[in-house]
Each structure stands twice: as C-alpha cells, then as structure tokens.
C-alpha cells in the first residue's frame, strides 16, 4: 500500500482536459512538501503521458502511487498499441496527425521526455490490445 493512491480517467480526443490529472498530482506533491525538482519531473512526465493517452490511446487511466521516497505513475490505455517501441522511443519519431501538430504537439518528444525525466520507465504494448507505461521518479536522483 502506498501512502497516497490516486486514479484519474483521461478522456480521449479532448485536449482541453489534458493536464488536469498531472496538474492535480503536482498540486498534491507540493502540499506534501516534495522537492521542487522531483515535482517538476513528475508533472512533465505525467503530462506527456496524458497527451499520449489523448492523441494515441483513445483515452485511458492514470494511476499514481505516492510514497516518501518514490512516485510511481502508470498510464494505461486500450488503444491501438505501439508496433515498434524502440522506434517510438526515438526523439523526433511521431505518428501524430496534422491537427495535433497544429496544437504544438507531435514533435516526437513525448516518450523521450518521459524517459529523460524519470528514473525508471517501462513500456508494455500489444498491437490491438493497448499500452501500459510505468514510470518512477525518485526525489534526489537525476535533475
């Protein structure tokens, strides 16, 4: 059992609500007194994950477990899956459509940013079934 367990539903194709979950987590971590660098890393990685759920996953679920020495984030969708995870991890690789690029996304920086700002990250994806991304931020590491 974690100290604080949070669950959020992220609706698909609704860019206006992306950032609500990561904003709420940021707010709660601030209240709990986490160091600013760790809060920033959690917020950035989680927002990128939320945007991925909106653009690619058809929506999904964000589950966050907060403990004094670590924050675990899981982003779960039942979307199309990622055929080639290694390729998707390359900076600049993107399958985002033009309307998404017009909003300022789709630069192929989402997954690389998530990896850059977290201490651990795993992607479990099956084409036609969905994708689960798990990330961990440890305060005091990286940064």
């Amino acid at each position, binding site marked *: 059992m974690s100290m604080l367990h949070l669950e959020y539903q992220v609706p698909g194709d609704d*860019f*206006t609500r*992306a*950032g609500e979950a*990561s*904003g709420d987590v*940021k707010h709660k971590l601030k209240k709990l007194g986490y160091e*600013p660098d760790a809060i*920033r890393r959690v*917020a*950035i990685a989680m*927002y*990128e994950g939320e*945007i991925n759920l909106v653009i690619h996953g058809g929506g999904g679920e964000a589950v966050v477990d907060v403990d004094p020495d670590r924050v675990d984030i899981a982003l779960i969708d039942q979307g199309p899956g990622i055929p080639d995870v290694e390729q998707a991890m390359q900076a600049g690789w993107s399958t985002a459509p033009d309307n998404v690029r017009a*909003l*300022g*996304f789709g*630069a192929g*920086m*989402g997954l690389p*940013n998530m990896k*850059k*700002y977290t201490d651990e990250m795993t992607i479990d994806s099956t084409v036609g079934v969905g994708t689960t991304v798990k990330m961990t931020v440890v305060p005091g590491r990286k940064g």
Partner: protein
Amino acid sequence: MTINDLAQACGWKLLAGEDGQENEVDGCYIGDLLSWVMGRAQSGNVWLTVMGNLNAIAVAALADVSGIVLCEDSALDPDAKKRAGMQGIPVYGCSPNLYQTAVSVYEQISGLAEQLADI
C-alpha cells in the same frame, strides 16, 4: 525582477493571469513545440511563443515558467485566457517578433538597459 516590471519596461500588455504578476524572472526561453518547451524551459524563465492555446497554459503551469509572452500579436484563445486566470499564469501580448522581444528581455534582465540609460 518581477514579470510585471519586465512587462512594463518592454511594453507588453497583460492579457490574463494577473495573480502571477509578481513572479520572478531570471531567464528566457523561446519555442512553439510544446513538448520541446516543457522539456527544456527552466523554472523562472519567461516563455516567448506564438502558441496561445489551452495546452500552452498547461505547459507553462507544469514547467513552472514565470509567464508567457505572445509575440507578433498572436492570439490568446478564450478558454486559454480563462484557464490562465484560474491558475494565475500571467500571459502578455506584444507586437514585436520573438527575436526582438528576446533582445528586450536580455536588455532588462542583464541590466544593460539601465547601464545604457546612465550613459
């Protein structure tokens, strides 16, 4: 210096988020690709961009920038204006382009403008 002081010195107009006007500025970042900006802008930076949508406000909030300056008279979307107000993210507008605005920011935060005024 505060973003309000910087805005007055540079002639920017406040569009939203007046609660954040006392945020301190110690640097500047320029960009329109949101993930790029979010990964690289530093806390305390003033962010110069032409992206005035709701997601830009979310990025500003999550990356802890001091505020947003929409250059070249780029528009702030109504829903973004509302969210900036709710979250206290100061958003300013100006006519000069990104480069000219960055030069003005440099002159102010480096103290160059003050030195030149004394000559």
